[in-house]
């Protein structure tokens, strides 16, 4: 898109906008490709080629045959699909009403809900599962009360259901975040037209609003599915092993790093995840989602009638209580000295926080640094790929998207081992430190692992920006770079921020690759610190305290970032109104 774009006849611009690419585009694409090659493709390849090779190095598919011969593996594969699908369903039940309330009604504390809704993401799933055991487990607070009063025991935290329950509560913010952004971006004129034509209530939502927000919903749903499909820690903390990710992990870590079946399981997970993504794009193929006008400024959000407000607030309070239950459990644990077979802890102390501040406050900085670098790189790369994909015809742009997205399906252990193998023979320039022992490697591992989240958010938000905005800018004489920085990126800001936040939060709780890559305690991030504490009998309290501090800090950060974005939107609107 050079300056020549402006000179083109108006009718030709649309095709020109999506039909061209320049040297700059190609250079950016190459840079990204190089990054992905070095930090994703090569490390993963060094590991998974085991799945395809015989002992003498020749290629074979025999391991795949052996794999499918195992009933256990077929069963695990099926269970993984069930858990993934059900988690998406349950997450949607939590997220859909919340997103709709926030974006369509005048609502006190909408920002609060959004911030609280993000909270589950910052808690490492294994910690969340531990805390939920304390509340909902077989001897958890709830069941102790029920047992006392009614003599019953609800098996909430048993088997696959427990996994679905914990995962849905943990990952529904993916849907909430993406869907809220999508709903805010819908042209209100569409809704107004529908209302003028007599549609209202649920019909309006089902026929107009939800279909228009589909890109956001699908982006969120696909992420939930992939994430749940790939999650090792949660099923394992709940002692569920008949799941594909758990089987891959168990085989690689217990039978041995050279056991091909574990790698076959990894390859199949990659394949299934890619298939799920492909399926989600298939649903949206051939549909137009971009609307001309951006929401927010045209139509004021509706006022709730009293009975509606009652329902809305009731649901919100219910969901928030559920969502916050692991945090409540963790908070109690962090102040407890002894908590055993009682509804709430019996002895309280502040000692856990003292211990954490004395021993481990540096881990908070490490996490902030690594995750900041990772999330920053992620939205940078994500925005670039989204732009190349949707606005240029650069050859190979789909491949970039595909490779970047496939990272979501690479188990952390596999990536960790791949990093160790790939970088062990290189050292950091100017210093006698091997690359694998260098902290930046951890940040890069996070970048690669969380890139898919940022990418999905960026793609979804760019899909909703109509290309005519850029055409207008170009017609008015803006160059390619100016159009991107002044028009495209500001219009995508909500999605980019959502991407940054999700990448940051999920990187902060990453554990499986972290365990492989941390080579000095002084380089350790918070997730590793919590894991360390939680491994010892006297240490669960400090572990919980560290978790509470991390959750609080990130909640504050998220809240501030939303405030910033919100006030910017307000200024933008005020500016327009004055014209």
């Amino acid at each position, binding site marked *: 898109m050079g300056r020549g774009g402006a000179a083109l006849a108006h009718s030709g611009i649309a095709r020109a906008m999506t039909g061209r690419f320049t040297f700059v585009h190609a250079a950016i694409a190459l840079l990204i490709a190089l990054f992905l090659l070095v930090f994703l493709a090569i490390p993963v390849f060094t590991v998974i080629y085991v799945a395809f090779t015989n*002992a*003498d190095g020749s290629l*074979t598919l*025999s*391991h795949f045959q*052996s794999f499918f*011969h*195992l*009933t*256990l593996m077929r069963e695990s594969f099926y269970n993984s699909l069930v858990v993934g699908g059900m988690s998406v369903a349950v997450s949607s039940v939590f997220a859909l009403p919340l997103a709709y309330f926030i974006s369509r009604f005048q609502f006190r504390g909408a920002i609060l809900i959004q911030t609280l809704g993000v909270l589950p993401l910052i808690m490492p799933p294994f910690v969340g599962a531990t805390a939920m*055991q*304390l509340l909902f*487990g*077989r*001897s*958890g607070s709830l069941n102790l009360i029920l047992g006392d009063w009614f003599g019953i025991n609800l098996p909430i935290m048993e*088997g696959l259901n427990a996994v679905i329950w914990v995962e849905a509560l943990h990952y529904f913010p993916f849907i909430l975040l993406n869907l809220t952004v999508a709903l805010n971006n819908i042209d209100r004129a569409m809704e107004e037209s529908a209302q003028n034509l007599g549609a209202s209530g649920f019909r309006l939502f089902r026929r107009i609003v939800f279909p228009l927000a589909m890109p956001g919903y699908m982006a969120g749903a696909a992420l939930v599915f992939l994430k749940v499909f790939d999650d090792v820690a949660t099923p*394992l*903390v709940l*002692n569920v*092993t*008949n799941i594909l990710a758990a089987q891959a992990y*168990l085989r690689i*870590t*217990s*039978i041995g*790093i*050279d*056991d*091909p*079946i574990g790698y076959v399981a990894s390859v199949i997970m990659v394949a299934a995840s890619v298939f799920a993504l492909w399926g989600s794009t298939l649903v949206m193929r051939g549909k137009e989602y971009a609307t001309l006008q951006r929401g927010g400024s045209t139509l004021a959000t509706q006022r709730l009638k009293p009975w509606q407000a009652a329902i809305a607030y009731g649901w919100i309070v219910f969901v928030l209580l559920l969502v916050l239950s692991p945090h409540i459990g963790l908070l109690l644990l962090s102040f407890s000295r*002894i908590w*055993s*077979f*009682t509804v709430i802890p019996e002895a309280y102390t502040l000692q856990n926080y003292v211990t954490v501040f004395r*021993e481990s406050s540096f881990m908070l900085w490490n996490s902030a640094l690594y995750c900041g670098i990772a999330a*920053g790189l992620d939205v940078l790369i994500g925005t670039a790929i989204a732009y190349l994909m949707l606005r240029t015809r650069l050859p190979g742009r789909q491949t970039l998207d595909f490779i970047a997205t496939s990272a979501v399906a690479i188990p952390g252990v596999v990536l960790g081992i791949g990093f*160790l*193998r790939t970088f*062990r*023979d290189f050292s*950091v320039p100017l*210093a*006698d*430190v*091997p690359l*694998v022992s260098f*902290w930046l490697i951890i940040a890069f591992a996070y970048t690669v692992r969380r890139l898919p989240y940022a990418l999905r958010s960026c793609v979804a938000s760019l899909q909703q920006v109509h290309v005519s905005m850029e055409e207008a800018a170009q017609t008015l004489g803006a160059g390619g770079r100016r159009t991107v920085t002044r028009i495209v990126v500001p219009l995508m800001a909500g999605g980019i921020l959502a991407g940054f936040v999700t990448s940051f939060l999920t990187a902060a709780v990453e554990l499986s690759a972290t*365990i*492989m890559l941390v*080579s*000095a*305690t002084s380089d350790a991030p918070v997730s590793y610190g919590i894991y360390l*504490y939680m*491994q*010892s*009998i*006297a*240490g*669960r309290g400090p572990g919980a305290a560290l978790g509470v501090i991390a959750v609080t800090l990130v909640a504050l950060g998220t809240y501030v970032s939303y405030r910033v974005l919100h006030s910017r939107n307000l200024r933008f609107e005020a500016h327009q109104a004055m014209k």
Partner: protein
Amino acid sequence: MRLMFRCLMAAILALCGFAAQAQQQVVIVTSFPKELTEAYKKAFESRNPGFRVEILNKPTPAGVAYIREAPAANKPDVFWVSAPDAFEVLSAEKLLAKIESPAKEVPAKIGNYPINDPKGFYLGQALAGYGIMWNTRYLAANKLPEPREWADLTKPVYFSHVSMSSPSRSGTTHLTVETILQGEGWEKGWQQMLMIAANCAAITERSFGVPDGVNNGQYGIGLVIDFFGLAAMASGFPTKFVYPSVTAIVPANIGMVAGAKNAENARRFINFTLSPEGQELLFDPKISRLPVLPSVYKKAPAGFPNPFTGKIKPKVNFDSELSESRYYVVSSLFDHTITFRHKELAAAARAIYQAEARLAAKPNARAKELLTEARALAFTPVVGEQKSKDKDFLALFRETKRSAQKTKQLTGLEEYWSSTARKNYARAVELANQAASLAR
């Protein structure tokens, strides 16, 4: 953006400069909890000014992988975990350096188990026995008697109140399982193991999951290594711990990595852990491990078990070679017939116990026969004792290089174990239900 990049570069350079400064340090890969490692780090550093102890905490299998994959120029110095098998793996791959014990006073053997590696690649640093811990409140609330022996845990009253880990996930559980197998013999040992496992509420993924679950009351009873049980009591949890008569005492080990970057410092640290001062640290209530130096027990807190006086009477003379030779068979068999089939196994036990309860009220000869058959199906290992000694069979599991042919053989076996176990458990449920309906 440019600013961000500059900051990043500055940070990188600063860090490189920092890292380039030479410092006397010793890098330790360990799976031990923070209480233990922190205590040693603090004591060693105050004793040796100018030295820095860097602790890398990793689960044992990840620790082994880390040492194997670490670049030659930057190998960690010390490996320090419980499971002797992990040391065997490393020494077989020539990843450990020979080391001389500084503590001549340490006896050669505890029971039949050599405390230091006879080949000289690793040293016993503490001793550990295996036992049963329970939550007193849980037992009281569920009106359960306190267990004393492994065999107690096979009783129907404990159904779904017990918990244990899997030998493939935890070196300590592997030793517990192997102790029972050696103490009771292969067939009887597996029978007992299957019955205990059937009574489990969960087979936990981490060995720490067991004491953790017992502490917070999620499970009533757990099979644990002694320091988990002792440390929980010392921390004030309402729990108790006993050594059953079929127990073995085995060392937790420490060794020096071959090609360690700071070999001299590694030696200094290992010597410290075996000095009287280093050994006494083990008495800390939050650590609660048994020292290998007999003389330091003089300073032990009241009630602390001393394995050298014969107060704990281990019946089992643990044979580490036997354990090592069938390591993968035991782990894999356990996983495929117990861990991954736990739901089916527990269902079989439940059906059998229910039928037995009915039968007790209304005896019936035919039903009794059916139940005997059901018990045999549910609680017999799918690999017989004869097969477990077969050299070719064991060799199949020992080789680490996996060809397509071998993978096929192995997965074939796993499939056979898994499907046979499942069939047996399902059939046991059927038989038990028949028996129950006869007793109606």
